[in-house]
């Protein structure tokens, strides 16, 4: 079952696919830009590049997906420098 735990993602960047409704898309960009955890670049047509850093990325990803002007969210980059927290095993040498 999905649990809302921090993702500890140091850095990730996404492409947000926006609606073709220009007014709704413009409002959505404004709403996303207002989120202080997100850095927004200039949209290419209705595809908006964004970076999320140093926060729990998952709820932000989910929030982006839930916006009425958003069709889809793709991930394009992730830093792998993350805290490790793995199960251990007696087989580990």
């Amino acid at each position, binding site marked *: 079952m999905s649990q809302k735990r921090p993702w500890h993602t140091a*850095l990730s*960047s996404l492409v947000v*696919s926006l609606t073709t409704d220009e007014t709704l898309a413009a409002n959505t960009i404004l709403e996303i830009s207002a989120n202080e955890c997100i850095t927004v670049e200039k949209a*290419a047509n209705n*595809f908006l590049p964004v970076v999320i850093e140093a926060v729990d990325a998952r709820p932000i990803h989910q929030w982006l997906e839930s916006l009425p002007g958003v069709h889809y969210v793709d991930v394009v980059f992730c830093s792998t420098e993350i805290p490790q927290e793995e199960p251990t095993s007696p*087989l580990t040498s």
Partner: protein
Amino acid sequence: MMHIDRRHFLKSTALAAAVAAAQQKAFGKYENTELEPTLANDGVTWDKAPCRFCGTGCHVRVGVKDNKVVAIQGEQLAEVNKGLLCVKGYHVGGILYGKDRLREPMLRKNGQLEKITWDEAIEVIAKRIYDKPEQFAIYGSGQWTIPEGYAAQKFIKGGLSNNHIDPNARLCMASAVTGYLSTAGVDEPAGCYTDLDECDVLIMWGNNPAEMHPVLFSRVIDRRSKGQQVKLIDIGTRRTRTTEYSDEYLEFQPQSDLAIANGIAHLLVKNGTYDKEFVARFCNFRKDTDEPSLFGQASTFEEYAALLEEYTPERVEEISGVPAQKIRMLGDLFARHDIRITSLWCMGVNQHTRGTNMNRLLHGIHLLSGHFGKPGDAPTSLTGQPSACGTAREVGTLAHALPGGRIVANPEHRADCEKVWNLPDGRINAKPGYHTIKMWEQFCTATEKGGDINTVWVQVTNPGHTLPNLKKNFTGKKNLKDKFLIVSEVYPTATTELADLVLPAAMWVEKNGVVGNSERRTQQWFKMVDPPGNARDDAWMTIAVAHKLFEMGHPGMKDKDGEFIFNVVDASGATIPIWEWAHYYDVNTDEQLFEEYRLLSFKKHKDLAPYQELVKACGLRWPVVKKADGQWHETPFRFMEFSDSYVEKGKELQFYHSVTKDDKALIWFAPYEPATEAPDDTFPTWLCTGRVLEHWHSGTMTRRVPQLRNAMPHAYVEMNPEDARGKGLSNGDIAVIETRRGKIELPVWIDGRGHPPSGSIFVPFFDENLMINNLTLGDIDPISKQPDYKKCAAVVYKKGTPSPVAPPKG
């Protein structure tokens, strides 16, 4: 804490990647055209590799610094993913760095695994094989790279004259293979991912690409974002994330997809709306023999029409639960010639006791309607592993197969391989080996009771978790003292728990590799970082064991000139001892193995590009043909004159490996047949199993990545809200799931990601602590031998209440 300058640099890189991906999506182009490894000004070296996980074949750019993968981005130049990755892909670097990576060979002594040297390990294996080579088996997977699978294939079939080798791909796409073979005479799709960009209608048959192939699904959703019209139809047994994006959702009773496909064909014939010219030019008709067989027997259109007679929309509604008007809607869509239709399927169709037939029927409705042979008109089976196509299907690591579409039963095919491998005539055994389920049944059966497999070497897969009905097919080994299980692995797994010998393996960019994805695309990468401890390449392990047997005098390890079967020489002709780890990378062994294998790729027109051409590309789709311009050209669309060099001029469409030898494909009739186990009074619920977005297969890699593990920490049972309420179960309560094979306790998830209809449940299989495969059925398709994981009968009740299942008498 990451250094601030480096962080700043990575942020710039992340932003640039997103901008480039957005431009790629918006304008379909990307300015940088260099694929060469690049050294950035913070010391991070970037190089290309395909993602380690599914069969989509996305390319990533891997950032490496100080012998460690430090960043991943989608490869902008890759046509498959155009800079995008799914949540698993962008964490793929993390799979290398679980704390419990296996680092040393370990042999079980007095019940405990104890560290040994590689020399000791290789000798143990060689002795097991030398004593009883005919009782030895190799079990691999679609995660083998092509050179790894090829080495294992040559070792066992060419060296030991033993065909007991099978990949876990038997569990995921064997029915796709038999479907393609019995339709077109040769395996693998005609189309490619471009079909997703060109279709007007996308029909997903028991398929959830929004979670399982999200980058491909994103390609389709992008088209809507650009204002294009594409109609999505989800034909499934439960609502999924894919359903949320679909225009139509047709919910069918498990197993009744056969009736739906026949219902479409019935309407095309009855209404006279099938493509008569296409059928006359390019198709013959076929039906099965009394005993199911791969190529069946000839039939006629008239017989086909008569056999379809009973599949009226109303009859199909009775069988499937899909309203008759929806069957008519599908029939009307296939009848239109002004639109293009692509069908997608994966495990829902393939993991099916009639998987071969369901594949045949899907090909059949596309052929009958003429929705074939143009971009966007395609029946396409997706794969779940990075090289299920490349290694299992093309290298032919199946028990009956040989490289390049050959089979062991064909003398000419055996002779081809013996020639390339420089083996004496007759070295390769003509009798197919054991398929996966049979192999494990024989291994888990006592020798004195006929269990004639006594040693299995598992490479790059986890059968202790993924085989169906595990008590019968895997854990039965536990008390059989003369059976010996060797496991090459990267992490401790359910399989290593029963292993007698564990070999630590290198993975992904810790070694060179070549793989083949779902659209016939062969992809290459170079080693970028060292494996941990004493972990080593799987292909090296195979070659080292082969050489030990050579030293011991095993005649099969010599070619007909007396040389070692994996002999590699340098420019002066001197042997390079690649069986010694210190010398394995003195030469690019992958390239050596691949170039030898490539010689076997031409017979069935699966022509692979030279290794050095693959180095320059983000994969090339075979057949790759050198043309008059001196360039190597890939083939996006096979059998189609506008794309495929092997189609004769003027033919337009040519199935040049046709079963009937007349360049035509086969339209099969196959009846609806009930499931082998269906709900009854005692076990009244359908149990379906499958995957989740965050975890890849048995989770051994993705569960080591904290972000993925935390996002989806454990398995669950999806229940219908009314069913749950009727059993006193709420979200988070613990339910007991029981089948005739066993029972398991799982937390209930209601109205979560998936929505099963009343009378059915869904459980994902990724969780090694909650293994649903202790309960699954494992009945197999009679032709492909692929097991059904999608349906069996179960009962669900709240933990703490009595089991409604009466104990067996006696």
